[in-house]
């Protein structure tokens, strides 16, 4: 795939519990940061692509669709398109794909993608009840007490059955996330934990223990996609999109034909082919978590573990800061906090920050190529993107 688009700027506000920070304020702040980071003026933006809001107010969701950001940030009569894209946890990968198509087609220059939501004030039971309906079939699944936790538990159990991955290895994923979270000023959990601490938590639903799951948080992040030929004039550090592969696999998780790996094997292969790169070329993996099993699927599918199982590779410490393959360097939803669809957007933002050399204490030295993954709802789609400092 010829590099016809690149990320040129990013913005993000801290993730956590911010009851006095409105969703709009967070969105405007993240967008402003992204525009300034790119060195653009607001009137250079020709499309604004907000991601759907789940827990923030309906009013705010409508404001986003109805161009509030264009008015707040001085983009009136320069923006040609203000339209929402929503793919749940895959919204990072999905917005990247749509933004890519918009600039590659010549329809617009400079697309601003933004997510802002408020999950932090949700009570535990409200959140559980909401996630017993989202992506859960009312007729065929909800009557059995099924919910988002059991959906990912079904994937986790089958993945463990087929690969021999252990619960301690799943715990090691959370340990890796927390170590990265400790280096991330925007993360909610900044204290490292041990495998033993994770294993001391009783199962919520087997085989999931609380610290291998994530907690809801408020957050906002934004990034800007430009045409490749413009990107190199906009910023000295454009991050080119080299591959973007994805497949929608199911609505009801019970209908998934490959519960252990979803479509990650197919999309990994396609993303490598598009990028003209292979496993040895990937220097950092920004893989979607929400739950500890998800990055394992992507790590295995992309063959990033020196021929080993992802669980054993991670338990050996290879994805930690300073390790041979840094993974999810924000700390992911597990450490940074679960902002809903924003988990995916923040991973695209971090992928770009790493390749722009703007990742602060988390900076992976000499990272040239990065992989990013996403999966939305009850893991109903599998996305892998490959980004690079180098155009193809």
């Amino acid at each position, binding site marked *: 795939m010829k590099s016809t688009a690149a990320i040129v700027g990013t913005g993000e506000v801290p993730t956590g519990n911010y009851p006095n920070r409105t969703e709009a304020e967070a969105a405007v702040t993240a967008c402003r940061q992204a525009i300034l980071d790119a060195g653009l003026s607001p009137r250079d933006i020709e499309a604004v692509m907000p991601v759907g809001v789940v*827990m923030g107010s309906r009013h705010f969701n409508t404001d986003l669709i109805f161009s509030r950001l264009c008015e707040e940030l001085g983009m009136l009569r320069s923006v040609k398109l203000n339209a929402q894209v929503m793919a749940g946890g895959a919204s990072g990968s999905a917005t990247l794909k749509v933004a890519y198509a918009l600039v590659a087609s010549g329809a617009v220059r400079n697309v601003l993608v933004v997510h802002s939501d408020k999950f932090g004030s949700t009570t*535990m*039971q*409200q959140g*559980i*009840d*909401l996630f*017993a309906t989202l992506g859960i*079939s*009312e*007729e*065929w*699944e*909800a*009557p*059995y*007490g*099924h*919910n988002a*936790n*059991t959906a990912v*538990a*079904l*994937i*986790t*159990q*089958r993945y463990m*059955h087929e690969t021999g991955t252990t619960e301690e290895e799943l715990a090691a994923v959370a340990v890796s996330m927390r170590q990265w979270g400790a280096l991330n000023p925007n993360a909610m959990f900044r204290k490292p934990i041990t495998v033993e601490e994770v294993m001391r938590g*009783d*199962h*919520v*639903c*087997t*085989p*999931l223990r609380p610290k291998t799951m994530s907690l809801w948080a408020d957050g906002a992040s934004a990034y800007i996609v430009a045409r490749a030929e413009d990107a190199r004039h906009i910023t000295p550090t454009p991050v080119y999109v080299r591959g973007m592969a994805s497949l929608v696999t199911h609505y*009801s*998780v*019970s*209908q*998934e*034909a490959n*519960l252990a790996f979803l479509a990650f094997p197919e999309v990994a292969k396609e993303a490598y082919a598009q990028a003209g790169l292979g496993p040895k070329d990937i220097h950092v993996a920004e893989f979607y978590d929400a739950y500890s099993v998800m990055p394992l699927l992507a790590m295995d599918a992309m063959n990033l573990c020196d021929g080993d199982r992802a669980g054993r590779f991670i338990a050996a410490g290879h994805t930690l800061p300073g390790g041979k393959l840094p993974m999810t360097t924000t700390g992911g939803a597990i450490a940074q906090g679960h902002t809903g669809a924003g988990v995916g957007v923040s991973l695209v933002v971090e992928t770009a920050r790493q390749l722009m050399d703007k990742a602060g204490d988390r900076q992976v030295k000499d990272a040239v190529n990065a992989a990013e993954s996403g999966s939305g709802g009850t893991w109903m789609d599998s996305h892998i993107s490959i980004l690079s400092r180098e155009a193809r």
Partner: protein
Amino acid sequence: MSDQPMSRPVPKPTAWSQPYWDAAREERLVIQHCNQCATKIMNPKQYCPSCLSDDLGWSESDGQGTVYSFSIQKRSPASPFVGKGPYVVAVIRLNSGVQLLSNIVGERAFDVQCGDAVRVAFEPIPGTDITLPVFTLVG
């Protein structure tokens, strides 16, 4: 979002799924199929997902299959299920090839493993005219 407690989710049969729930009430498991291309369809649909035909029918299942995956919900379920646990949620692969979500019930339910053989059973939802197909371990 609403602060109202959720009520127990009960299937609301549709025009195309009604035969499934009618059969379940008679303690029979039936699976939808396409009369044009023979595709077996689960979950039941308005049209055949292979050829989009509306010429669909039903066939009797022997209710035998294996556990493709499972999870034991031990705590923190959705509010209608609080106090009803622990319970087993599973994806069942029927021997005829289709998959469905269900519960594993019976005294050995918590010993379940991937690949275990199961057989259909039926549990009425009290106070409704709906009966849920569920599964028990066999052998």
